[in-house]
């Protein structure tokens, strides 16, 4: 559960950073795509437990 809390906080911070970049930076394609990828990996790895599915097989 603690992991989930840390992940959701990280997702919130990354979304805020993403939004700030969109407002402040003119050419923002690369940083925004990078942040979106990090967010997706966090959800896939921790919320969807991709590691367990990939490495061990699910129960």
């Amino acid at each position, binding site marked *: 559960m603690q992991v989930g809390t840390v*992940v*959701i906080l990280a997702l919130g911070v990354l979304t805020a950073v993403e*939004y700030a*970049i969109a*407002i402040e930076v*003119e050419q923002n394609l690369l940083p*925004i795509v990078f942040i979106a990828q990090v967010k997706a990996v966090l*959800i896939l790895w921790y919320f969807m437990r991709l590691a367990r599915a990939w490495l061990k097989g*699910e129960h």
Partner: protein
Amino acid sequence: MALASIYARDGYAGDGHRPPEGSHGEHAARPAMNAVGLWLFFLSETFLFGALLAARFYLAGTDKPEHLNQQLGLAITCVLLASSFTAYSAEVAISKGRRGWAGLMLLATIVLGLVFFGGVVLEWSEAEFTQGEPYGTAFFSMTGLHASHVLSGVAILVLVLFLLVRGRFSREHHWGVEASIKYWHFVDVVWVFFYPSLYLLN
């Protein structure tokens, strides 16, 4: 397939067909097969959403209209992210046998999903562009298909909540809860890419 996964208990579809006694190898392999099927379903959906994402840039480049409601876009994104957390909490709770808390978290996820859907409806109603414009085509296609997945996710979660209340799932056997929540997270991952491509890129 998703519905079959939800009804599955002990890894089997709830159709009353059990393996013959002694076929323990197959019995053990079935839950893993369910998981593989679910991930293959996600893969096929990824191609669908990926095609839409590519179409957005093909049609409109990185252009976006001046009058997009950025606050609304940010708000519904936060709502969907929060719903992923409540869904995760529900999964953790059922895996520990805390069915009451799991039900409450599932209910919270359903409510947040409906709030997200309401946000998309509001967005559509106040959009100052039409589906005839390149950006409008991409916007309505992407948000429309995604919102339909959110709505189907809500329907699946309602079914899972109903089954949970009726005692269908336990700490040992909760594949239906897990599969539906994984689907919910997948819908969230899709929005993680759709949101910046529609609202944020310059």
